[in-house]
């Protein structure tokens, strides 16, 4: 098994773990945990192809991952801010209970 | 080759005072090479000895500093300080160590023992990692990392997670409140810390700490050292770095997370014995590492302050500057009262971050103006006017008016 195949399989498994978290978790913050795992799996794909693929002088892999990390940070900040606002209003982060639009 | 032949063929400068801190590492490497050990073992053993040297030096400095701090604070408060354990209290750190080691290790019943145990261990790891990349002398950098400054900041962010673990795993209210305060303070003051270091990186053109020190070589006008602190953007960035480093190390006046008069000991409340000693050690080692970084970035690292003083070994200059910076930390601790949490946040976000952001264009203008009189003329107004606006004009609304005491004045 080449290193590239190992890393790609591993990142697919990581992606499915993140997807499992998003689908089965009840706490809104733990769903964000799953989203971060999915983003990391995609980043790992980029780095694996940059390292074990054809040589790229334009550094596409690391650059994409850099922007992906920056955007993931921004999205985590906004997502947590929204969750905390909803928590302030309804005192709960349970998604099963947050199913109506008007408080 | 035998040991004697190896020693004879070694670099003759090995026995000079400049190489003194590297001597244990080189001796172990030569010994292993003469025994015919493989290359990787020689390198590994050399690195172990280098790490051991750094840890040994800074742990003894930590022990000495705990005594010096208590004596300095005592003298500032018009009392004597510890003087019972040995001549002038010199054995006080030994007595403290014995006390910490023999105390009972209490873990609360509602605490999670695994995280409770892991937190003090994890809080000592980042400062020791960070101490490994600082250039202490011309020949003495424990690990040469090309991205040294980025590595330093990256391991510094691990401290926040360990503080959270300590606060949450204790399972009681005071530690959790202390952990919340500590994390928000550390996160807020990390931004001015990193942004003020950006100007230095920009002007030097490299993230490697030995390169930053080498860039500050030379003297202006024959006797003023070319350190980064003696430029307008460097002075501004250096002062911001200094204040932010006090907040990052949780020292007074920013020691709200461990304010003894308010929340007992913050996130360290439920710790006793050796675990508390590890917290203490982590805080002081963090102080050493961030003061060392400040000396490297702004005070020229191991460069001598005057042209003729190159005879003195470079690591002596580094530790002298480090001692001056740490004495100033102790002095500030003895002098200033603690700030409130809202004053702390306001100061970070509304004063330090705008000023830190302004040092970046100031550094760029300075670099392209060549650094002479034109550079000074262009950058000083850029930095001075916003500072005056932020600190004097903007705070006039918040400054307390003169208090009148009804019963005392009558």
């Amino acid at each position, binding site marked *: 098994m080449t290193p590239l195949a190992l*890393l790609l399989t591993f990142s697919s498994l990581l992606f499915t*773990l*993140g997807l499992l978290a998003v689908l089965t978790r009840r706490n809104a*913050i733990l769903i*964000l945990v799953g989203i971060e795992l999915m983003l990391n799996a995609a980043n790992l794909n980029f780095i694996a192809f940059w390292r074990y693929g*054809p040589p790229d002088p334009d550094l596409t892999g690391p650059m994409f991952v850099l*922007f992906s990390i920056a955007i*993931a940070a921004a999205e985590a900040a*906004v997502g947590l801010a929204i969750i905390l606002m909803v928590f302030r209003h309804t005192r709960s982060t349970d998604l099963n209970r947050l199913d109506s639009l008007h408080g | 080759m035998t040991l004697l032949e190896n020693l004879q063929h070694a670099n003759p400068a090995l026995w000079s005072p400049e190489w003194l801190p590297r001597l244990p590492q080189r001796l172990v490497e030569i010994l292993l090479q003469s025994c015919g050990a493989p290359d990787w073992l020689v390198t590994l053993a050399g690195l172990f000895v280098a790490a051991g040297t750094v840890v040994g030096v800074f742990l003894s400095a930590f022990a000495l500093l705990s005594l010096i701090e208590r004596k300095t604070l005592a003298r500032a408060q018009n009392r004597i300080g510890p003087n019972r354990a040995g001549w002038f209290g010199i054995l006080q750190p030994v007595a403290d160590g014995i006390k910490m080691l023999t105390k009972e290790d209490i873990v609360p019943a509602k605490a999670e023992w695994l995280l409770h145990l892991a937190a003090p261990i994890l809080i000592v790891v980042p400062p020791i990692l960070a101490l490994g990349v600082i250039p202490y002398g011309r020949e003495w950098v424990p690990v040469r990392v090309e*991205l040294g400054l980025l590595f330093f900041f990256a391991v510094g962010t691990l401290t926040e997670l360990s503080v959270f673990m300590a606060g949450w795993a204790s399972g009681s209210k005071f530690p959790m409140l202390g952990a919340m305060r500590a994390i928000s303070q550390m996160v807020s003051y990390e931004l001015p810390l990193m942004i003020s270091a950006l100007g230095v990186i920009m002007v030097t053109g490299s993230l490697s700490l030995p390169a930053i020190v080498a860039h500050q070589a030379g003297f202006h006008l024959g006797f003023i050292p070319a350190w980064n602190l003696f430029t307008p953007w460097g002075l501004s960035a250096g002062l911001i770095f200094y204040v932010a480093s006090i907040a990052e190390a949780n020292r007074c006046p920013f020691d709200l997370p461990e304010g003894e008069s308010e929340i007992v000991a913050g996130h360290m409340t439920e710790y006793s014995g050796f675990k508390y000693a590890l917290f203490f050690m982590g805080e002081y080692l963090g102080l050493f590492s961030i003061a060392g970084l400040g000396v490297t970035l702004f005070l020229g690292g191991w460069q001598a302050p005057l042209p003729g003083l190159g005879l003195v070994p470079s690591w002596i200059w580094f530790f002298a500057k480090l001692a001056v910076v740490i004495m100033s930390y102790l002095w500030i601790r003895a002098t200033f009262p603690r700030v409130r949490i809202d004053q702390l946040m306001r100061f970070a976000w509304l004063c330090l971050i705008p000023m830190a952001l302004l040092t970046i264009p100031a550094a760029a203008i300075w670099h392209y103006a060549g650094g002479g009189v034109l550079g000074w003329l262009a950058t000083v107004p850029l930095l001075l006017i916003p500072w005056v606006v932020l600190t004097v004009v903007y705070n006039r609304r918040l400054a307390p008016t003169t208090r009148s005491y009804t019963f005392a004045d009558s």
Partner: protein
Amino acid sequence: MTPLLILTPLILLAALGAVWNARPVHAALLLALALALIAVLYLIIGADFIGLVQFMVYVGAIAVLIVFSLLITRPGDEAEELARRPRSLVTGLACVLPVLAILVYAVSRVVKFPDAPVENPSVSIAQVGQVLFTSYAPAVLTVGVLLTAVMIGAALFARDPGKNPQFPSDS
């Protein structure tokens, strides 16, 4: 290859713990561990800059944000989550296993690149900076605008509405 073979199962175990552990704080700390191990993986592969940035941003900022919000919202009562475990596991796996099958099939169809470099490529920070500010300058500016918008939005969320309530949800 051997470091990868050692590191990959560890990351998967930590991610499994983050996804499946019923106690939220433990899950968040296991996520921090998984992210730190992924940063180590990047460093081993040779993406030094990205590895350190991953450590600084993901472990040092995002994981801290997650545990901080867990500290504020203080979730409890894992008994309810544990009670629904069997049914949620079955439905979760039913939705997730087809995705895994498609991904593994796609991986198996990847053409093997003939000249993969044996040793790690050395990328200097000067090269990164050059590429970032010439080829990717529009992206940098866009991300700057995005982050400013995020900061303003988060500050708006966090403000104390008691002083001047403007929205019906404020009072």
